[in-house]
């Protein structure tokens, strides 16, 4: 068998030699020459006629070709085969390499400019630090950077060389030149000098400054030769005969070549030095531009408005080589078109247009069992749908079926041939919609080839893709190997993704119309006669499945079935289905009392798959709740079951709704008279309140809120009051509209819209806000010129009392647009911001995975967590409270679904059986299970106790003692009706618990990092940029939303709203709280001074300060004149001495200016008068204010402190230092350490997400937090942090600062072992996560692999 082309069925790896790692180094001039085929010396590109390229020019044919018509001069191959060949330019004079300019500078700073020795204070220093480099364990990135810093610092400090005694000066860069300043004289160190110095540096010294020995010699930092890249990467474009457009690189190289020749000529001719120098400088700049056209330090004359696409520019950025071509590639076997909904498809399917199916093919190998099938496909050919496009024979020849004699081909088909057959029903494809924010943006669907031109799928699957059908397009990919196909089918199938890995809530569930339908169908007064009922039964079954018809709920006087019965059948069409559902849910319209007897029928009880009470809304069958039906189906039965239910539901809904008809009209939004009256009342009373408030404010009698001035108080009170009006009306509407009102149905059932939307359409649009406040004044003292000056009224500040139905006034409309615009801008800004955040999170967490010992490690085997989430359980498989089983629900299910017996177990027996089961389980000794077992134990104990109590209450024996003997009696029967728990049921309970726990244990290989990154990043898109009020305290805003998440993740030092929460030692007394507050808050002299007066007398001039002792007393400050005196002396800016300040009384002091000369006295007085009020007399300088907060429930007092200074706060008397927390992560690290800051990160992210109503499993948050802290210091998820976490050059280069990382790697001579996700993608190797985690320890094929043997070279033995 020839191995000319690797067959697609087998991994490429086994045949080809593969890349184990990448070593970076700076090429020496010899290396460059070795790589090259020719030296480029001719500055001309073409000959005179512009037909042929010139020999030894930049477009020499031996450098490769860029046109189809030509043949390479070196390898004689055509454009598609020739890889291109390099050339080189020998530089007459050396120049600095711009990429290593920084390194060159640092190197020159640390060596002696005479003998090139390292400027250390002693040899011992060298030996000490060299030892670190030679440690057997690899240096950590942070360590390495620190060592480098230490050495550089040491060398910069020492001026005198210990070898030669030469006194060095400082080395600086100006533009692209480097100067050495010795005793005020600046000498240029030109490239020739640098080259000379660098070649003298000893190998030990090079190692000390971070260059690893042989590959990276310091003299290579200076360029003596330039490598000319092959022509094919800088193709010339023929514009017309004789005119061609050259690539930017060719142009620059030509300029360089030109200059090089010029300098040579100048040197040869012996022209003046100044001319040579200026030409040399120019060449330096051009060479810099060739490498990086955006380099700093280029002469202004060369900086173009549109920088050229130089080497660096080709690599960096989104469309650069790394991100655009290596990390992400264009693919074959994919398709894209508009999507549309199809409720008749199962959630696992996707309908693919025939036209697409005919292009996307799968290479299927001919085997005896599929010969017939493939022969038929071959006969069908490329134009009839289940057909084939081409055949590849065993010998590697390929045959297109378009023009072939297909009949003959089909007959000659043999085992081992490969048929490129059309995509067909039952194939699995990847289905994807951008932006792919989480893993469920790409899922595997089963193909259903259908007519028409769109990709179609069940609407239930819209949520994970975040798709709608307003013109969205989506992509499909057909995997090309059986391996890939199986892998996507098993790991990425839709049915496996009904629950989101973010929180374990269902994300694929009936939506919109399906909810409306379920709501209407399950109304209490939906009755169907036999004909209608039977017809509806066929809606979901396609008349194909067996249905057990229930007995009608009303038998007489007329047979009538209810909608609930219909739903029950839909849920469980036949009694043959053994698995049953037991769910009890408080629905959205639950009245709040009576449980299942709720008068609005808002309590859903499903028992043994029978809907017994309640109307179904979003909570029961919709997405996003763990108490619902879908969740139960997936968790207790199987995803397939849930998927079938969803299919039945969507089939039924679309048909049923179509027959029933649901539509919205003007009558739906016309308010009733009753409502109008109510609106009038509510508006009237609210307006009255507001006016009273404004009146109070005008009189200055408004009681202030803590930490607010009068104006702020008024605004916050009015805004709060006015914003409530809309909600109040919405609530009113919810109770007054009837079930024939379409918007109401939609709002209640949760299919679309909310109370607010009802209210805005029918009653009142409500208060308009811009960044959380009422409409700001756009004009002088008013919002719009339609209102009087200083108008604070509701109408004048953006309250819209009209509804969309009644129509808005012009001013109202204008205010409404202001609010609307904010929303639009918000979304626009947010998408960009969260996108970048997501990318950074992903880059820093991508290679974390679970290893076989359940630790979480990076690709370089650094441990981020010792046990994933502290219990090794998978977030996706959690029920309530982040635990794998919700015990009460499970117990109810077990009790309902397993046949009851006449007599229930006694409480004693319950605990006895439970103890037995638990002991058995404990013996298994599974990791992380102990907490779970304790939970069960507690639950069973509680249950048994509850039963015992009930028995006692009914006047029976408690039954929780061993001695108690149960007897058959009427009382026992009665109590069994209530309790009803049998041994079988209890055992089933335990069995299910173990099963669920074992299934919840996370699988080794799981890419937990990526999932965590997505789980934090994806919700970001749902958050608004708003900041909200802090609990209870109106004035204290804290940043929330995306900006806050950004702050936390970036580990920002200067956060916008730092708040310290401090508990008080005495949390009952307001007085002691005030004292503590006084001690904390920064108080200026100006705040407590009654006056600061200038006094001019004949004897002299001074400032007289009187303290407002009343205010001081009220604020419980400890300030008197003596203390103020000390504060003034300590306040550096005034330069006042002890004798300048005289304390007159306890509340009075006199300050004399230190400057007493006639000219300056007055000004000195003025200066003092201005500055004195700013002297801080008490408190902590970093704390702006503190607010006493009273807990509403416990009435305990605590302090909320705005500002930094956790340490100072903790030391303040009266504060309970054990309970002081700050939301500032860096400060927490500083004061309390890394573990505390880890906790703070978790708490802060959790809090921020919670404020936006987003629930994310804490395991994800903890992992992000661990990654930020596992290095022992806080590393933000930014370019700085990531470069400290990861050592891989390729990964860092594909993240940010591409060129810098590459040059740095070359300087260090570093080696990238290609282990992480990014690197492996770049190299086209399988990633070491998931199914790629396990590999063969020994690969027997490798030895048989055809690696070319190394041939001895002619003189190699001579060495």
């Amino acid at each position, binding site marked *: 068998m020839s191995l000319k082309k690797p067959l697609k069925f087998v991994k490429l790896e086994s045949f080809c030699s593969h890349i184990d790692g990448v070593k970076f180094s700076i090429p020496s001039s010899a290396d460059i020459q070795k790589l090259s085929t020719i030296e480029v010396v001719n500055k001309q590109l073409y000959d005179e006629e512009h037909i042929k390229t010139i020999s030894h020019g930049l477009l020499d044919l031996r450098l490769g070709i860029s046109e189809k018509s030509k043949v390479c001069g070196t390898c004689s191959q055509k454009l598609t085969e020739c890889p291109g060949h390099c050339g080189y330019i020998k530089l007459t004079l050396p120049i600095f390499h711009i990429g290593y300019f920084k390194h060159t500078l640092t190197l020159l700073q640390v060596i002696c400019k005479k003998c090139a020795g390292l400027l250390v204070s002693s040899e011992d220093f060298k030996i000490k630090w060299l030892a670190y480099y030679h440690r057997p364990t690899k240096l950590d990135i942070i360590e390495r950077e620190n060592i480098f810093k230490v050495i550089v610092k040491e060398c910069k400090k020492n001026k005198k060389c210990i070898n030669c005694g030469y006194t060095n000066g400082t080395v600086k860069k100006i533009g692209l030149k480097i100067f050495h300043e010795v005793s005020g004289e600046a000498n240029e160190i030109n490239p020739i000098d640098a080259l000379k110095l660098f070649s003298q540096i000893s190998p030990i010294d090079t190692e000390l400054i971070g260059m690893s020995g042989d590959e990276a010699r310091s003299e290579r930092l200076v360029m003596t030769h330039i490598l000319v890249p092959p022509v094919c990467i800088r193709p010339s474009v023929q514009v017309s005969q004789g005119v061609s457009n050259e690539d930017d690189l060719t142009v620059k190289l030509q300029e360089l070549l030109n200059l090089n020749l010029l300098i040579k000529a100048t040197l040869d001719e012996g022209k003046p030095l100044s001319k040579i120098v200026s030409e040399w400088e120019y060449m330096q700049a051009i060479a810099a531009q060739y490498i990086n056209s955006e380099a700093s330090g280029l002469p202004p004359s060369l900086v173009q408005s549109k920088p050229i696409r130089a080497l660096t520019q080709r690599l960096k950025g989104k469309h650069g080589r790394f991100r655009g071509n290596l990390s992400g590639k264009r693919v074959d076997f994919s398709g894209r078109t508009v999507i549309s909904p199809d409720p008749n498809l199962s959630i696992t399917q996707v309908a693919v247009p025939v036209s697409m199916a005919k292009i996307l093919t799968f290479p299927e190998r001919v085997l005896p069992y599929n010969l017939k099938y493939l022969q038929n496909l071959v006969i069908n050919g490329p134009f009839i749908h289940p057909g084939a496009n081409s055949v590849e024979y065993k010998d590697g020849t390929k045959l297109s079926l378009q023009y072939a004699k297909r009949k003959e081909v089909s007959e000659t088909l043999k085992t081992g041939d490969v048929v490129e057959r059309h995509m067909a029903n039952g194939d699995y494809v990847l289905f994807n919609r951008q932006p792919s924010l989480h893993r469920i943006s790409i899922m595997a669907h089963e193909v259903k080839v259908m007519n028409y031109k769109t990709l179609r799928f069940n609407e239930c699957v819209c949520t994970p893709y975040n798709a709608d059908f307003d013109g969205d397009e989506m992509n499909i990919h057909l995997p090309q190997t059986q391996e890939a196909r199986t892998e996507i089918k098993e790991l990425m199938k839709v049915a496996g993704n009904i629950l989101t890995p973010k929180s374990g809530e269902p994300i694929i569930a009936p939506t919109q119309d399906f909810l409306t339908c379920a709501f209407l169908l399950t109304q*209490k*007064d939906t009755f169907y006669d036999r004909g209608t009922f039977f017809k509806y039964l066929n809606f979901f079954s396609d008349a194909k499945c067996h249905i*057990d*018809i229930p*007995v009608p709920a009303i038998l007489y006087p007329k047979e009538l079935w*209810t909608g609930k019965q219909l739903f029950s059948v839909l849920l469980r069409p036949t009694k043959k289905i053994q698995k049953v559902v037991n769910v009890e849910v408080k629905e959205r319209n639950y009245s709040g009392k009576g449980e*299942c007897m709720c008068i609005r*029928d808002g309590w859903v009880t499903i*028992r043994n798959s029978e809907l017994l009470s309640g109307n179904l809304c979003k909570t029961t069958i919709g997405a996003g709740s763990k108490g619902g039906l879908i969740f139960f189906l997936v968790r207790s039965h199987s995803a397939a079951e849930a998927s079938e239910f969803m299919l039945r539901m969507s089939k039924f809904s679309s048909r049923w709704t179509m027959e029933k008809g649901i539509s919205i009209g003007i009558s739906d939004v016309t308010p009733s008279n009753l409502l109008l009256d109510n609106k009038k009342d509510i508006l009237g009373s609210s307006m009255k309140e507001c006016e009273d408030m404004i009146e109070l404010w005008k009189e200055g009698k408004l009681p202030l809120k803590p930490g607010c001035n009068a104006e702020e108080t008024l605004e916050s009170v009015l805004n709060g009051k006015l914003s409530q009006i809309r909600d109040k009306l919405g609530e009113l509407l919810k109770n007054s509209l009837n079930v024939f009102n379409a918007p109401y149905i939609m709002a209640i059932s949760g299919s679309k819209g909310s109370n607010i939307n009802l209210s805005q359409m029918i009653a009142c649009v409500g208060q308009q806000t811009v960044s959380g406040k009422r409409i700001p004044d756009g004009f002088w003292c008013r919002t719009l010129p339609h209102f009087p000056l200083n108008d604070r009224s509701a109408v004048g500040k953006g309250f819209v009392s009209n509804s969309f139905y009644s129509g808005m006034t012009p001013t109202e409309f204008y205010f409404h647009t202001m609010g609307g615009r904010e929303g639009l801008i918000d979304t626009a800004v947010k998408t960009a911001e969260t996108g970048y955040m997501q990318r950074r999170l992903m880059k820093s967490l991508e290679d974390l995975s679970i290893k076989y010992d359940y630790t979480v490690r990076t690709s370089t085997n650094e441990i981020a967590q010792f046990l994933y989430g502290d219990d090794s359980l998978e977030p996706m498989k959690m029920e309530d409270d982040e635990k794998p089983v919700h015990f009460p629900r499970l117990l109810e299910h077990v009790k*309902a679904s397993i046949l009851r017996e006449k007599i229930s177990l006694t409480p004693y027996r319950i605990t006895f059986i439970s103890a037995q089961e638990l002991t058995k389980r404990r013996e298994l000794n599974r990791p992380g299970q102990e907490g779970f077992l304790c939970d069960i134990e507690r639950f069973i104990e509680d249950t048994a106790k509850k039963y015992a109590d009930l028995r006692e209450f009914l006047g029976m024996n408690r039954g929780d003692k061993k001695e108690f003997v149960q007897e058959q009696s009427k009382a026992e029967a009665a109590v069994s009706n209530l309790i009803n728990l049998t041994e079988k049921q209890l055992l089933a309970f335990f069995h299910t618990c173990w099963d669920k726990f074992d299934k919840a244990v996370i699988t080794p290989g799981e890419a937990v990092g990526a999932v965590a990154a997505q789980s934090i990043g994806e919700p970001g898109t749902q958050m608004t940029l708003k900041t909200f009020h802090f609990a209870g305290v109106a004035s204290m805003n804290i940043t929330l939303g995306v900006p806050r998440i950004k702050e936390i993740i970036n580990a920002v030092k200067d956060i916008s709203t730092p708040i310290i929460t401090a508990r008080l030692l005495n949390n009952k007394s307001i007085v002691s709280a005030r004292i503590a507050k006084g001690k904390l808050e920064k108080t200026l002299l100006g705040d407590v001074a009654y006056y600061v007066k200038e006094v001019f007398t004949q004897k002299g001039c001074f400032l007289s300060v009187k303290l407002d002792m009343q205010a001081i007393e009220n604020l419980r400050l400890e300030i008197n004149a003596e203390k103020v005196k000390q504060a003034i002396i300590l306040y550096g800016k005034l330069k006042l001495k002890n004798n300048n300040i005289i304390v007159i009384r306890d509340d009075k002091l006199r300050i004399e200016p230190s400057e007493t000369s006639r000219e300056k006295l007055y000004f000195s007085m003025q200066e003092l008068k201005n500055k004195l009020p700013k002297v801080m007399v008490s408190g902590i300088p970093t704390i702006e204010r503190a607010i006493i907060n009273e807990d509403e429930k416990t009435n305990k007092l605590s302090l909320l402190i705005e500002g930094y200074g956790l340490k100072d706060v903790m030391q303040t008397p009266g504060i309970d230092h054990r309970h002081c927390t700050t939301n500032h992560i860096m400060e927490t690290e500083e004061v309390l350490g890394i573990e505390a800051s880890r906790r703070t990160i978790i708490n802060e992210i959790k809090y921020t997400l919670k404020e936006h109503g987003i629930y994310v499993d804490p395991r994800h948050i903890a992992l992000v937090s661990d990654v930020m802290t596992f290095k022992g210091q806080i590393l933000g998820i930014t370019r700085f942090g990531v470069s400290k976490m990861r050592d891989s050059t390729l990964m860092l280069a594909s993240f940010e600062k591409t060129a810098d990382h590459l040059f740095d790697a070359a300087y260090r001579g570093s080696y990238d072992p290609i282990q992480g996700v990014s690197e492996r993608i770049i190299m086209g190797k399988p990633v070491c996560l998931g199914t790629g985690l396990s590999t063969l320890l020994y690969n027997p094929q490798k030895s048989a692999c055809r690696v070319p043997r190394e041939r001895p070279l002619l003189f190699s033995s001579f060495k």
Partner: protein
Amino acid sequence: MGEASGSAVLLEDTFRVSSVDREGKIFQRVSRIEGSSQLYEVQITLDVHSELYPIEVGQYHSLLLASSLSLDGTENKGSYNIHENQSNTLLSKYSYCMYGKIFKHAMDRNLLVVHISFGGLLMTITGQPAELAQLEPDSLVYLLLRKLY
């Protein structure tokens, strides 16, 4: 115990309707009635189809809960049979009949509340636990009503 024989009868009583839709009429065709029985002193709450069986406050109704419709007390199978012969059953003696399931027992202070659902039309019977012991959870029941006066 009245006309129906033996084991099929679970509860037979007469009750007086004390209220109809006490908390307002929410559903067009369903009314919730409340009443207290004369014999067993149980409280009854019941949803009925108000068009098929209109009920007014103050009326007296005879109520029968049975596990089977047949007069001889043979068990019902719980599935629908179109051809079932309905003559000579309990139906002939009553004017309204529903079929449903006992699904929940709960305690309200010292009284037992038995919940029955007739395809979503709910019923509760509140009484002494011992008196209602025959109403076992998950059993299927027929509810028959007849207006007395």
